[in-house]
């Protein structure tokens, strides 16, 4: 049966709404996004006014308080509220997820489009470039990039993750563009005498947007996970409450029975990654019209 007046997006949304798990995940993602925005506002407010925010204030009298009415998730070794630091951790995680995407996705899309559309020498070059990057040993390569970046801290994390994770998307986009290039609407656009750039970015790109959206949703949690590991190792965030640093400080205390910081950070990290992973899977199913019922 053909339904009239339904775009791909409303169609996809209809399919997504039917998937109860996906909707729960979407809710979680929205919740985390709100927390990240709230965290950014709090950070920005304290930063602009140049005062020490509560999540950085050291008060040794309050150290290692178990979760209670005053501190829902307890306090850490320096008497700082775990819940407030956790929210700041969401902010850092989102910053990493978004900024690395802003580096990796444009590179992947641009190179993939050029390679798929022009073919020949351009294609050979792009394929060579991504085969080279794909050969590099994952985490070690990311850590090496972060090491040679002059400034320590988040910049190294952004560049390390951003410059290594465009390969998969580039390959996907190239494949899709190759497929679309042969289709009649592209032939028609060519016959009309439209420029290559316009055909690539105005005609083909909107048709492969779903690939980019799904990739974004699935690479986001991967980037967050990598940042946690880097910060834990002391190569990433410094002086700000990243989840990696919180795990680092909570790890030793765990052995003495202070379970709360570890538990809540782990839980938050798990939920964030799980929500994005499941949502990504659901989006892929919803946006792929071939699987239509």
């Amino acid at each position: 049966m053909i339904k009239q007046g339904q775009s791909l997006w409303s169609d996809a949304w209809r399919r997504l709404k039917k998937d109860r798990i996906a909707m729960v995940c979407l809710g979680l993602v929205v919740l985390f996004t709100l927390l990240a925005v709230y965290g950014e506002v709090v950070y920005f407010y304290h930063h602009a006014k140049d005062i020490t925010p509560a999540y950085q204030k050291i008060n040794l009298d309050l150290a290692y308080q178990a979760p209670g009415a005053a501190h829902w998730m307890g306090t850490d070794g320096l008497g700082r509220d775990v819940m407030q630091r956790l929210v700041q951790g969401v902010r850092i995680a989102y910053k990493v997820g978004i900024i690395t995407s802003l580096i990796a996705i444009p590179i992947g899309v641009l190179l993939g489009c050029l390679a798929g559309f022009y073919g020949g020498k351009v294609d050979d070059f792009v394929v060579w470039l991504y085969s080279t990057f794909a050969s590099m040993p994952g985490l070690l390569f990311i850590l090496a990039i972060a090491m040679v970046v002059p400034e320590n801290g988040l910049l190294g994390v952004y560049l390390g993750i951003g410059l290594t994770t465009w390969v998969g998307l580039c390959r996907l986009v190239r494949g899709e563009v190759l497929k679309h290039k042969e289709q009649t609407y592209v032939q028609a656009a060519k016959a009309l005498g439209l420029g290559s750039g316009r055909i690539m970015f105005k005609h083909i790109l909107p048709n492969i947007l779903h690939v980019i959206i799904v990739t974004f949703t699935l690479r986001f949690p991967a980037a967050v996970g990598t940042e946690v590991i880097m910060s834990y190792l002391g190569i990433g965030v410094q002086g700000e409450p990243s989840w990696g640093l919180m795990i680092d400080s909570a790890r030793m205390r765990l052995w003495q029975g202070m379970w709360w910081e570890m538990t809540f950070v782990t839980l938050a990290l798990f939920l964030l990654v799980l929500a994005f992973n499941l949502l990504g899977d659901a989006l892929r199913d919803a946006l792929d019209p071939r699987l239509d019922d």
Partner: protein
Amino acid sequence: MLKYILKRTVQMVPTVIGVILLTFVLFNIVPNDLAAIALGKNVTLEMLENFDQQRGLNKPLFLGTRAKNRAYEDHNLADGAGRWRAWSNAVYSAATATLTIQPGAAINPLAFPLKDGEYEWTATYRGQGNLAGTELDAADWQTEKVRFQTMGEAGFATAGNPLEIKALKLRRITTNPFDSQLFFYFKQLMRGDLGFSEYFKQPVSRLLLDGIPASLSLTIPIFIIGVVVSISLSLVCAFFRNTFIDRFLVVIAVALMSINYLIYIVAGQYLLAYKQGLFPVWGYESWRYLVLPVLIGVVSGLGSNIRFYRTVMLDEMYKEYVRTAFAKGVSKPRVLFVHVLKNAMIPIITNVVIAIPFLYTGSLLLENFFGIPGLGYLGINAILSSDIDVVRALVLIGALLFVVANLLTDICYAVADPRVKLK
């Protein structure tokens, strides 16, 4: 077959060159001062120059006959007096960004004695004086190149009149334009020389050889157990497709995938080793020390592997030969374990062979947490202590092994599926 292997090997060459170039870009071009990263803060310029000398960093990048030298580093006078603050008879003016050498002065601005060779000053000056044995005399601003040998005088001397300087740089003159950092790196690799660890004061190749056995003792069990368990579980999924067991395993797989590697290690160490006392917490003395890291390694990889193999199996399940087999009355287990598994071999081979290079780099995190003295342990510590040569060697060898594993995959393809060769 031989022709196919040869063809694929030749196709591998550009990627190998790409990998070498990428490590060159990462370690020679990106960092503005590799020696400073490696040696830290409290070092003299001469130590930095020696570091550069040893690694060929004091040569031109790609091609050229002029090389920088740390005895007088490029310095823009508009930014300040720099090292000229040391001489009272050289007066710096921030307003005009110039330096005036007073009459009757003799100043040698080099930070340390130069090594043998021919050098060249490029000076933009006004006034009268002497630089490295060459008389300078100009009423208006003029740029002059002054060549000198190491033996002679390298510095400035003025007599009755002052000499003003606007810009100054020092270059070493090399005779061979191909004597560059890139070719130095290539030659080093050709010799099989992977560099020298500043931290351990040992050749990198020695460190790698020492670390490989420990890494392999950890990664090979993880690899084999992981492949067997995940393929078995994916077959279970395929067997019970769309039943509770299948869905349950899929959910478990996604959940396992979403747990951070760090958490597996921390939780495993705390719950199993510390709380339950089932395994030693840290160390590398007997096989018992390996049980927990191997367990963690297997479990952490299980999620994505089950999902991958399940997709592979289900893709095969829809093929016509499967339907034919069922129609002939072949039993379900036989179809799965004989027909499907055999045909699913190609994607499985890819996944398995591609994982081999990672056996060599070991597991960065596992080795670090459990104190297993393998390459992963070496790698993390090299990064934390900025031991450049070790990191570069690990990255390079990891990448080259990946390229070789890719080649092996293609050859396995060709063996498993004769159609591949014809393409």
